[in-house]
């Protein structure tokens, strides 16, 4: 059936698809050319090399072309394209169009390919004699990445998933039989509200630069083994490995900052498989960096260095298989669903795993593995031990995260641990103890041989000192209530900070080149301290002790009651604070709930007062989506989020300003009449009401007062929970008929009417309608305090600085050698 569709813009998509095919073809061409350039024995023949370069440049241009076409499509709201329809909408501001660009799998593959293109060009420029073999590997990876975007049918199965697929090709609906279908598709699905956060603009590019740069040390290792330049590859690879570790680490922490600021699971790290997937290769490459340095300085640990470097990149690919293939299924909240690329992703992992394994096996006998044992009191031995422990901690993450994979392979049905967070925490803490203690103790060791007595004196001295400080910190922060292993981590981290602090002090005295590692280690120690205290002693401030009695058994359940309900304008004591839900402010599509926090001193004076505005938005695609708001102090954070808000509050917020005169008595308790004289006070459940005066000249909107008409207003002052409101219900006689106009005070849950005037007693009948509690606006919120979380963030910054210093140092060494 051929239908001439109206209004479609097919050119950008066709152009984009052309670039995808070109990117795939040119990368393949480049990989093959570089391969022959490497194996060519005629050193004077540079034709293969030039062809390889041309292929790579062409690939880089095509990758940019793909990006430009896709951006144009999203930016111009061309909803005939599935990608734009799925991930964007007209109301999205430009900076979030950037995040919607990489919300989908295709966009994030593009991002990866883009960074790999950039890195490849840097290597063409800088790698000199390494260019041919290294670029062979990178062009091969670029080929596989481009194939993920192909989206073409070959032998009846679709290879890859193209971002330029049209909406009418992506799904079936009767509407697509209409030529003018596009005129009915007014808007796209929009970006997931949780991703509408500035971290989502910069976190994915950083993370994918990290992933992409993991290939460079891998490519050097492959090149070294392939070209039998066993010893030489290590030196240049160290700088690139440091860079990859630095960027990936930054990306991971940015992700946790995003989670902390806009998700409401109440923390920054949940050991979700998606988080683990990014951490797994980071751990092995950190280990690899250390053993590479060992090898460079002493000639030991060659096999471990090579193995860890190779496995790191294979794990990057394995991690992307885990998160993108849909295999995680129910075990992860935010892994992607299967785009039909399961086996494609498997092939990607297997290709590089086979390359790595083959080279390791066939070159094993020729590897420069030292026959001599490391000395027990040498730096190299303990750095080696530390790296192996990093690899073991990675192994634990891989084994547990991969439970669905084991199920798929062995046809079992094991469920993930019912409390994975505790399991990971305890295991990873065990490894962290060893690793942090080693980052400290090895600083007192020298390469090859160390004076044993001096080593023991300084190690023990610092350890005692660290133990004292740890004791104080553990006591003051309450960490001692946790499992013993966490106290040991604290000891290890403090020890590492102290010892590396000393190294840093020495560095300033002249051994400046040691500064990088010292600073990075201090940063890592601080991260551990911050994570331990903030996660270990975070406490739910909104512990709820009220609530109906659902039976004694229920109360004994291990679940703590973490949510607190607040009626509007009714202050409630929460921990040290008095909190009040004071109002709403709406900035579509976000509904902000203003929660007032007061800290009172012993005499009831306000020591501190601030307002937090956690928000929720009602999203057609996802339902109610809430984001927290956090009060940051230097030494702790107070985090607040809405767990639930009744929809009528949200809707009431939406029609603010519309005064509806409908009969809503059903929303109130039976009215209570009071006869009042001016100056009288009546009590009601939440406070009292005073009739201050009568207004003989009352006006009601849109109703003119003429001739014999009378309009009387009662000026009422209502005091509810210490807050004062004014209301003026009006009594009117117009053309002989009697009307009265009620006034509502929604925040106090009141409706007031002036129903009768009793001239003989000079009294007035005021009808008080009181809203039953369930009908009054309320929110349910949860508040958590995170002590010393700033150690975590500042530790990260310090660690990054340390990595930068190390990169500069290693680059300088490269030039001098």
């Amino acid at each position: 059936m051929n239908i001439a569709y109206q209004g479609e813009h097919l050119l950008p998509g066709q152009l984009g698809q052309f670039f995808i095919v070109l990117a795939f073809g040119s990368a393949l061409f480049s990989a093959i050319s570089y391969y022959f350039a490497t194996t060519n024995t005629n050193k004077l023949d540079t034709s293969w090399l030039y062809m390889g370069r041309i292929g790579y440049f062409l690939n880089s241009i095509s990758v940019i072309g793909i990006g430009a076409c896709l951006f144009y499509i999203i930016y111009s709201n061309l909803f005939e394209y599935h990608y734009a329809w799925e991930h964007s909408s007209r109301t999205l501001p430009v900076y979030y169009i950037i995040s919607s660009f990489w919300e989908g799998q295709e966009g994030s593959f593009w991002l990866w390919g883009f960074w790999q293109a950039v890195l490849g060009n840097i290597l063409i420029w800088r790698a000199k004699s390494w260019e041919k073999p290294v670029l062979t590997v990178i062009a091969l990876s670029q080929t596989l990445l481009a194939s993920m975007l192909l989206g073409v049918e070959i032998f009846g199965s679709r290879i890859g998933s193209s971002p330029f697929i049209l909406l009418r090709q992506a799904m079936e609906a009767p509407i697509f039989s209409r030529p003018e279908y596009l005129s009915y598709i007014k808007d796209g699905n929009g970006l997931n509200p949780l991703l509408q956060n500035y971290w989502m603009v910069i976190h994915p590019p950083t993370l994918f630069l990290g992933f992409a740069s993991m290939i460079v040390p891998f490519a050097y290792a492959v090149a070294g083994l392939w070209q039998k330049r066993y010893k030489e590859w290590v030196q240049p690879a160290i700088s690139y490995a440091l860079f990859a570790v630095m960027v990936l680490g930054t990306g991971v922490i940015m992700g946790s900052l995003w989670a902390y600021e806009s998700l409401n699971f109440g923390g920054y790290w949940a050991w979700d498989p998606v988080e683990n997937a990014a951490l797994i290769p980071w751990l092995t490459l950190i280990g690899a960096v250390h053993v590479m340095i060992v090898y460079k300085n002493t000639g030991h640990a060659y096999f471990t260095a090579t193995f860890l470097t190779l496995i790191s990149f294979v794990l990057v690919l394995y991690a992307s298989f885990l998160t993108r293939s849909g295999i995680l299924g129910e075990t992860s909240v935010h892994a992607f669903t299967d785009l039909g690329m399961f086996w494609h992703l498997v092939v990607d992992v297997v290709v590089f795993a086979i390359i790595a394994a083959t080279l390791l096996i066939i070159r094993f006998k020729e590897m420069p593995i030292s026959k001599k044992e490391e000395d027990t009191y040498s730096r190299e031995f303990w750095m080696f031990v530390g790296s192996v422990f990093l690899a073991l901690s990675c192994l634990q993450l891989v084994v547990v995260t991969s439970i669905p994979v084991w199920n798929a392979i062995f046809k079992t049905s094991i469920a993930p641990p019912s409390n994975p967070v505790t399991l990971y925490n305890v295991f990873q803490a065990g490894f962290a103890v060893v690793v942090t203690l080693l980052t400290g103790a090895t600083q007192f060791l020298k390469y090859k041989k160390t004076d044993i007595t001096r080593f023991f004196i300084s190690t023990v001295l610092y350890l005692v000192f660290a133990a004292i400080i740890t004791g104080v910190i553990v006591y003051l922060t309450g960490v001692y209530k946790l499992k013993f292993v966490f106290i040991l981590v604290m000891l290890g981290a403090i020890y590492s900070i102290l010892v590396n602090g000393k190294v840093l002090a020495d560095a300033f005295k002249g051994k400046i080149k040691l500064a990088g590692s010292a600073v990075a280690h201090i940063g890592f120690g601080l991260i551990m301290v911050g994570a331990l205290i903030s996660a270990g002693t975070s406490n739910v401030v909104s512990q709820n002790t009220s609530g109906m009695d659902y039976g004694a058994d229920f109360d004994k359940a291990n679940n703590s009651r973490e949510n607190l309900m607040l009626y509007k304008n009714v202050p409630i004591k929460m921990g040290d604070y008095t909190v009040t839900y004071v109002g709403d402010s709406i900035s579509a599509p976000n509904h902000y709930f203003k929660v007032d926090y007061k800290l009172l001193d012993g005499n009831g004076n306000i020591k501190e007062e601030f307002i937090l505005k956690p928000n929720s938005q009602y999203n057609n695609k996802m339902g109610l989506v809430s984001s927290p708001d956090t009060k940051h102090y230097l030494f702790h954070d107070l985090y607040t989020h809405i767990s639930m808000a009744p929809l009528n509050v949200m809707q009431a917020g939406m029609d603010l300003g519309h005064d509806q005169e409908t009969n809503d008595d059903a929303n109130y308790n039976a009215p209570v009449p009071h006869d009042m004289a001016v100056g009288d006070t009546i009590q009601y459940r939440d406070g009292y009401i005073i009739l201050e005066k009568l207004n003989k000249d009352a006006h009601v909107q849109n109703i003119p007062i003429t001739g014999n008409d009378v309009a009387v207003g009662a000026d009422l002052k209502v005091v509810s929970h210490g807050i004062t409101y004014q209301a003026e219900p009006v009594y009117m006689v117009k053309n002989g008929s009697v009307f009265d106009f009620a006034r509502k005070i929604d925040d106090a849950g009141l409706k007031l009417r002036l129903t009768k005037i009793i001239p003989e007693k000079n009294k007035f009948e005021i009808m008080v309608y009181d809203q039953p509690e369930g009908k009054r606006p309320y929110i349910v919120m949860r508040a958590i305090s995170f002590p010393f979380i700033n150690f975590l963030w500042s530790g990260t910054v310090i660690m990054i600085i340390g990595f930068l210093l190390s990169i500069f140092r290693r680059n300088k060494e490269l030039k001098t050698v």
Partner: protein
Amino acid sequence: MKKSSIFGIITIAVAIAIIICTYGSASTYGTFKDADSNSGELHIIGHIDKQKEIVYDATKDANYFSFYMRDTIGNERKVVYTGTKPEDFDRTDKIVLVGQMNKGEFHASHILMKCPSKYTQDKLDVKADTKKASI
């Protein structure tokens, strides 16, 4: 024995310990029947029974949520969860519970739902269909 071999043995021992611990701590998927006879925590996959009452009333208790779920072989139990009703609960059908039985009620410590944005993929919400009728 050489130092490196000792260290190698330690490494292998830790690796084996990791695998055993993983297997030991791993939970199992089961049914409500299994939960009746089992005191440990279980994963149960099932469907929410939307015919029966789903209780969450913040004004009575902000931390009590209960509903009925039917497991894969058709047993149905009341499920109680200490906390608020998850935001996307109404849009979900299939869920995974983690928890244990307590006097005929299943006390869930976690309710796992797939992110609805990715779960209910590609529902074209086009107003054209209603318009078509009037054309």
